[in-house]
C-alpha cells in the first residue's frame, strides 16, 4: 500500500579523493555538477532529474554510503511516516532544512541492516537540466561521458535483510518486486519498488552491516551501455563485469568502480512492476543466472567486494 514515498531522492557517498571522484561521477558518468557546500561536499544530478541534486559526494577516510534518501509526496506524509518509524522502533533523527543545500527538513532513521535512510518532501526544483519542461528539446547537446539520465537505485548488503525489507514494506509502503529464496524458503535477496520500476532499492543478506554494493544510474538503451563500456576502457577505469544482462529485473548492465572503490552501475531496460504483481522469485541454486544471465556463473567479487 502506498504511504506517500515517491522515489529515490539522493544518495551521499564517501570518497577518498574528491578530485578523482568528481572526475568519475561528472566527467565519466556524465552527471551534472550543480553545487558545492562549505563542508566540501559536491552535489550532482542526472540531466533528466527535476530536483536540484541526487548524488552528494563527501570526502572521508573510508569509502561507502552515508545514507540514501527517499522523496515523499508532501510534508504531511513525512510527518506521518516519522511517527510510524518511531512506533516501529527506529532511531529517528531530524535533519534541519538547509543541511543539504536546497533540501528541506529530512527525517533520518536507522535499519536492521545497519544502513541509514532518510525521507523528505521538499527540495529545490531546478528542472530537467538545460531543457526544462516548457517546449523541451529531446536532450541537452552538451552532455559528457555516459550521459547518465538519473540516479536510479542502490543495492545494499547487510545482516537481517528480513528486518529492513519488513520496514520498507510495512512502514514505507514499498512492494517486493523480486526475491531470491534458498531451499528452506529463506530470502537471500529482496528487490523493492515504490513505483513501476523493477527496483527502487535492493538488499542482499551479508554479515557486515551498512555496506554498499552499488549505486546505479539509468541509461536509455543497450547501445548506451556498450558505449559506457568503451568509455570505461578509454579511461582505464576499474571494471567489475559486463556488459551483460541480469536475470533479476532483466536489466542490461555494466559494473565498474569509482576511484575510491564504490561500485557504480549503468543499466538500460528491465522489467516493470504494478502493485498487484506477485513477486518474481529466483531460486538460490540459480543465483548465477539470476545475477549474470549470460555467464550464468556468479563471480566471487559480486558477493564480497563492498564498501
Amino acid at each position, binding site marked *: 500500500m502506498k504511504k506517500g514515498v515517491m522515489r529515490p531522492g539522493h544518495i551521499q557517498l564517501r570518497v577518498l579523493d574528491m578530485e578523482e571522484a568528481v572526475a568519475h561521477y561528472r566527467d565519466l558518468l556524465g552527471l551534472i555538477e550543480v553545487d558545492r557546500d562549505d563542508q566540501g561536499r559536491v552535489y550532482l544530478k542526472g540531466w533528466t532529474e527535476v530536483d536540484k541534486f541526487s548524488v552528494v559526494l563527501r570526502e572521508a577516510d573510508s569509502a561507502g554510503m*552515508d545514507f540514501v534518501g527517499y522523496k515523499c509526496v508532501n510534508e504531511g506524509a513525512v510527518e506521518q511516516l516519522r511517527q510510524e518509524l518511531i512506533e516501529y522502533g527506529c532511531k529517528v533523527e531530524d535533519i534541519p532544512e538547509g543541511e543539504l543545500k536546497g533540501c528541506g527538513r529530512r527525517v533520518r532513521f536507522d535499519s536492521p541492516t*545497519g544502513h541509514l535512510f532518510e525521507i523528505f518532501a521538499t527540495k529545490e526544483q531546478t528542472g530537467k537540466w538545460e531543457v526544462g519542461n516548457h517546449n523541451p528539446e529531446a536532450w541537452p547537446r552538451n552532455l559528457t561521458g555516459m550521459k547518465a539520465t538519473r540516479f536510479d537505485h542502490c543495492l545494499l548488503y547487510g545482516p537481517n535483510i528480513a528486518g529492513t525489507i519488513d520496514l520498507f514494506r510495512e512502514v514505507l509502503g514499498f512492494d517486493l518486486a523480486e526475491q531470491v529464496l534458498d531451499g528452506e524458503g529463506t530470502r537471500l535477496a529482496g528487490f523493492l519498488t515504490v513505483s513501476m520500476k523493477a527496483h527502487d532499492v535492493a538488499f542482499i543478506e551479508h554479515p557486515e*552491516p551498512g555496506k554498499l554494493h552499488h549505486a546505479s544510474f539509468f541509461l536509455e538503451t543497450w547501445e548506451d551501455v556498450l558505449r559506457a563500456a568503451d568509455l570505461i576502457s578509454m579511461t582505464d577505469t576499474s571494471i567489475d563485469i559486463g556488459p551483460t544482462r541480469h536475470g533479476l529485473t532483466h536489466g542490461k548492465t555494466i559494473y565498474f568502480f569509482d*576511484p*575510491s572503490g564504490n561500485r557504480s552501475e549503468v543499466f538500460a531496460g528491465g522489467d516493470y512492476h504494478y502493485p498487484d504483481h506477485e513477486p518474481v522469485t529466483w531460486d538460490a541454486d540459480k543465483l548465477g543466472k539470476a545475477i549474470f544471465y549470460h555467464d550464468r556463473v556468479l563471480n566471487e567479487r559480486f558477493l564480497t567486494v563492498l564498501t
Partner: protein
Amino acid sequence: MNSHMASQATKAETYQISVHDGEAQFTASSTVNLLVAMEQARESVIGVGCRGGGCGKCRIRVLDGDYESKRMSRAWISEEDEAEGIVLACRIFARSDLCIRPEPLPLATGYQPARSVSLSQAELK
C-alpha cells in the same frame, strides 16, 4: 605519502616484487599500483576487488622495501596497520624491490565510519 603522486610525470622504474614464501614473483612499474602490476603480470597471489582502496580485498603486508601510498579506507587499514606496513596493494607504488605477504581480512565488521556532526547522533545498531 602524496595522494597525487601517481599523476606526476615520474620516470618509470621497474622493480621486482616477491611473495615471502616464493609462491609468486612479478615485476611492477613505479607508475602502476602494485595490484594492477600483478594483474598485468597475470599473477593472482593477491585478491582483486575494487582497485580503488575501498573494499579491502588486496590487503597485504610489505615485509621489505620502499613504497608510496595513496589514501586507503580506514575500514580495512588502521593507522597502526599502516605504520606496520599493512596496506592495500591497489594503493601503493613500488619505490624499490618489495617482499610482500597477502594479509586479507575476511570481514571488517568492527569499523564505524567517521560521520559528520549531523550523522553522529544516529548510532548504528
